[in-house]
Structures are given as C-alpha cells and as structure tokens.
C-alpha cells in the first residue's frame, strides 16, 4: 500500500501546461505559522494547507504557458492558484485550511482545473525506522492516514508530528452520532472522545475563537464511554445461547447514551452468521438490532460445535476426522476488511459448560488474526477478559 505524505514548505510542483515540463516551482506557506511537520533532519517546516491561494510559490512561474500562445511562442506563466483538490478532508488547522497531500492538485485560471501537481512533498527523505519509532501513531494517522505505524513498530512514543499552539486546537475527538465516523481528531492524546450530530458539529466548527468553539462543542456533545460490564455479560450470553447454531452480538455506539455497548444480533445457523448493514451516502456501516439503529464498531459471533458424518468406508485416502479449529475464519477476515471493523469469534464449540470462560479470537480490518486474545468473564469473575468495546472504539478513531 502506498503512503500519502503531507505537503510542507518547499514542496516542489509543476504545471502540465508549461512549455518546458522540467520547470518547477516551490510552495511557500504564507497562510499559517503555527503547524509544523518534522522531517528526517529534524528541522521544522510549515504544513501547507488549502489556504495557500494566490501567488504562493517562490517564483510564481513555470516558464512559458502553453495556454497563452503569442506568435510562434507563448506568454510567460504567472502562476496563480485559485483552489486545491485532493487534500486531507478530516482535519482543519487553525487557519481553517485542510492539509495538502502529495497527490493534491491546484487550479490556475490560465490553465485548467488541477493543472498544477506536487512532484515532491517537501519532506527531505523517506521516513527512517527512527522516524516511525518517534511518531505518535494517532498523529501519524492524522497526517498519513494510509499507514498505521503500530503495524511497523510496537512501541509508541510521545513525539508529536504536528506542533500546536496551546488553545488553538479542538481539545477532544468528535465522532458522529449516527455512524460514529470521526468528525475531527487533532491528535491530542489527553482529550475525551465525544459524540455529536454532524449538523451541530459543522455549525459550531464555523466559530473562529477556539475557546468559544471548544466550549460550545462540549455543550452540544456527550462524552463517549465504554460499558464493558454490559459487553462482557452479552458475550457470555451468546455463548450460553450457542448450541447447534451460531449466535452474534454487535459492538455499537448507542445514539442516546453515547455508550459503547453490545446489541444482540440475529441468530445464525450451523456454521454461519450474517451481518445486515446499511449505509447512507458515504457513511460508515450501521445496523439495526431489535428495531434500534446503531453505528457498527465491531461484531462478535460464536462458533458452534461442528457435527460431521463418519468417513465414507469406500473412500480411498483422505482424512478420518474433521473438527472445529480455534480462532477466526477466512470469511471473518474478509468481512473485517470489507466493513473496516474488528471481528471476534468465541470458541464456544470447545466449551460445553455455559458458564465457561470461553477463548476469543480476533481479526482486524488489515487481516491480522490472533487466537485467544482473552476470555469471556464466565460466571462474572473471570480475570482474563478483554475490553472489546474500547478496542473497537480505538480502531475507529485511529488510536
């Protein structure tokens, strides 16, 4: 998978209508002086945003412009940027600009839409191993959403890739009430996660004073919490219900209480369950359980004990016995990837006792399968439980 770097001061760009295709110019960030990106050499470069409009290049020319013929030649180019496309939509910096990515394109009125493109993002080199180790995964996810550094290095550090001026950022992470999509995540590690309607968020996000904006957003939102007890009880319940069929529960965001809870899903059949999701426009997947609509953050299902017929006595070769295996299946992996959620499987087939502490397997949207990540709480006092609700919430917000 290719990385998408953010664009910083000194990024090189070219225009497809330049008479000399090798002519380039460099971006000069004039729209803000507060947000910096670190490069390999450790120097700080201002992050370029969609507010880099007008004559915002060093030379403001790409040579001669093929769109302006005069006689046998062309008029000199006077690069004038009117708008940007292909930027990172999810973050708004304090200048109200969105972060430019290396595949962002600019429009010049003399040329055509998206005629100016970035040829070098301005960061001095590809990130080294040390860069990844020094990167706060949440911040990295914010600025380089295509890469999860935690997949590369397990240890997380506190170094921040973007420098904030105190009081000029939104303190908390805000997620949409309906589908739990992230509305804003500035990467502040000490903030709360809050639920707010998209309509309210967009209205209040227009406020330019950050103190006022933070206060108003807090008033209009609810802090998201994880009801781990309820989830643990539900996990044990689906194990208890499992006999000849699979059972399932969804990990969801309750729209009224802002709690991450487990909602019982439809019963499956022997060896199969189905997840009936819905989306509106480009929303994240949502589900309906017991006539209540929820944002879907994860799914847990049981694997029942397989019943197989004896081997055909006339069969030559082949195996004598077939039986259940631990963990998640290939289809679980595909579904996790498709819905971009964690899928969990309870090895219920291995435990006839309904109060047993049942082992749990997990597969992530990136296809990473882990057996026995934890156990259900059994009679209620199990010590090897895993906070699935928190895992699913963290996955959604990129933490």
């Amino acid at each position: 998978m290719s990385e998408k770097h953010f664009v910083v001061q000194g990024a090189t760009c070219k225009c497809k209508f330049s008479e000399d295709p090798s002519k380039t110019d460099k971006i000069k960030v004039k729209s803000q002086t507060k947000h910096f990106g670190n490069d390999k050499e450790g120097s700080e470069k201002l992050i370029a945003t969609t507010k880099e409009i007008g004559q915002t290049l060093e030379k403001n020319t790409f040579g001669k412009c093929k769109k302006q013929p005069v006689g046998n030649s062309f008029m000199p180019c006077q690069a004038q940027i009117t708008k940007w496309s292909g930027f990172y939509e999810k973050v708004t910096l304090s200048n109200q600009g969105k972060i430019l990515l290396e595949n962002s394109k600019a429009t010049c009125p003399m040329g055509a839409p998206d005629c100016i493109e970035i040829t070098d993002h301005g960061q001095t080199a590809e990130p080294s191993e040390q860069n990844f180790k020094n990167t706060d995964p949440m911040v990295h996810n914010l600025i380089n959403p295509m890469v999860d550094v935690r997949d590369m290095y397990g240890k997380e550090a506190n170094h921040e890739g973007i420098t904030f001026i105190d009081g000029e950022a939104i303190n908390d992470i805000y997620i949409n009430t309906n589908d739990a999509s992230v509305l804003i995540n500035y990467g502040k590690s000490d903030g709360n996660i809050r639920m707010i309607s998209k309509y309210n968020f967009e209205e209040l996000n227009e406020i330019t004073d950050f103190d006022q904006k933070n206060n108003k957003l807090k008033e209009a939102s609810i802090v998201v919490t994880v009801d781990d007890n309820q989830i643990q009880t539900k996990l044990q319940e689906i194990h208890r219900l499992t006999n000849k069929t699979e059972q399932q529960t969804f990990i969801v965001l309750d729209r009224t209480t802002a709690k991450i809870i487990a909602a019982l899903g439809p019963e499956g059949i022997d060896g199969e369950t189905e997840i009936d999701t819905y989306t509106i426009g480009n929303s994240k997947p949502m589900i309906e359980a017991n006539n209540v609509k929820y944002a879907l953050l994860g799914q847990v299902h049981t694997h029942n004990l397989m019943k197989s017929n004896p081997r055909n006595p006339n069969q030559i070769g082949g195996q004598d016995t077939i039986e259940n295996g631990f963990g998640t299946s290939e289809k679980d992996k595909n579904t996790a990837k498709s819905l971009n959620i964690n899928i969990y499987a309870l090895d219920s087939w291995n435990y006839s006792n309904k109060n047993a502490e049942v082992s749990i397997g997990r597969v992530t949207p990136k296809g990473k399968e882990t057996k026995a990540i934890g156990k259900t709480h059994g009679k209620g006092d199990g010590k090897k439980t895993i906070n699935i609700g928190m895992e699913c919430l963290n996955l959604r917000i990129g933490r």
Partner: protein
Amino acid sequence: MFKLKNWTMKYIYIVFLITTFFLMSCSTSYKTNKHLLYDIPNDKAKGMIVNEINLLKRIKQNAFLVFGKNKDGYKIEIIPTSDLKDNIQNFKIKNSNRMILLGNNYYILTFDYDYEFGATFEKEIENGEFIQIKRKKMYLYDYATSLYFDDKWSFIKKESLIKHN
C-alpha cells in the same frame, strides 16, 4: 373396475415417485439449459476442488462455490450448505444462474464481487426526511474452505478453519 382403478392409482403413484426423484436428485441438472455454465481449464485443480467438496459434504449435504481473482491468481471458496434455499436467505445463491460441472454434479457458482458490490436500496424516513439507504449483507461462512491457485492453476495454499486429522 376396481382392479383398473387400483392399477391407475399405482401408475399415477409410480409416475409421481419418478418425477419427484428426478426433481429432487437432478434439481440442478434440469436447470442447466437456462443456466450459464462455467469450467476450470485444469483437471488437477478440479480434482482438488471435488475432494474438498466431498470432505465438506460430511458436514453439510450440499455446497456452492465462490470464485475470485486476485493479483496472485485464483481463489475458489467452497461453502458447505445443508439446503441452498435455506442459506440464510442468501438471494445471491438462490438466484444465481451460474453453474459448474465438477465430477458428476453441477454446483451453483457465484463470484466474490457479487458480495462486494451486491446491495439493495430502500427509502426510509429519518429525522422527518426521506433518505435512501443502501443495505448490504455480509455472510460469515465459518465452515468454508478456500483453495488458492496461481494463474496457471498450480495449487498455492488452502485456508480453512476446519481441522483435518
């Protein structure tokens, strides 16, 4: 008169039995005229698939296949099922007109992108407004076995949650 009636009843009964037998045992075959037939151009690969189907038939009576193509080659998923019509109301299976002949049996066939792109659209009222929602069903077939082949149908690997001893 009685004998004739008895003979007629027997005749009707035998015809009914034969018809029922053909409808049940050859339910896939008689449809093939109006179905699209597919083939795998490699006998060894077909043999491996048949072996897996026979193995999975020890869990459920029937099976259907999901074909996929990726950068490494082909992926053949074999999904055991007790009854195609009860396959959790999977309309993609029930309505598929694609089939493949493996051994002496026809099997229903779907493609992985049927699942990726398959959706239904409904209008619902939310917050007092009509909105169009897209519904998509994901099926977790935990007994499925996937066989991976390269572009020349050489076997690469098998993925299955089922343990064989």
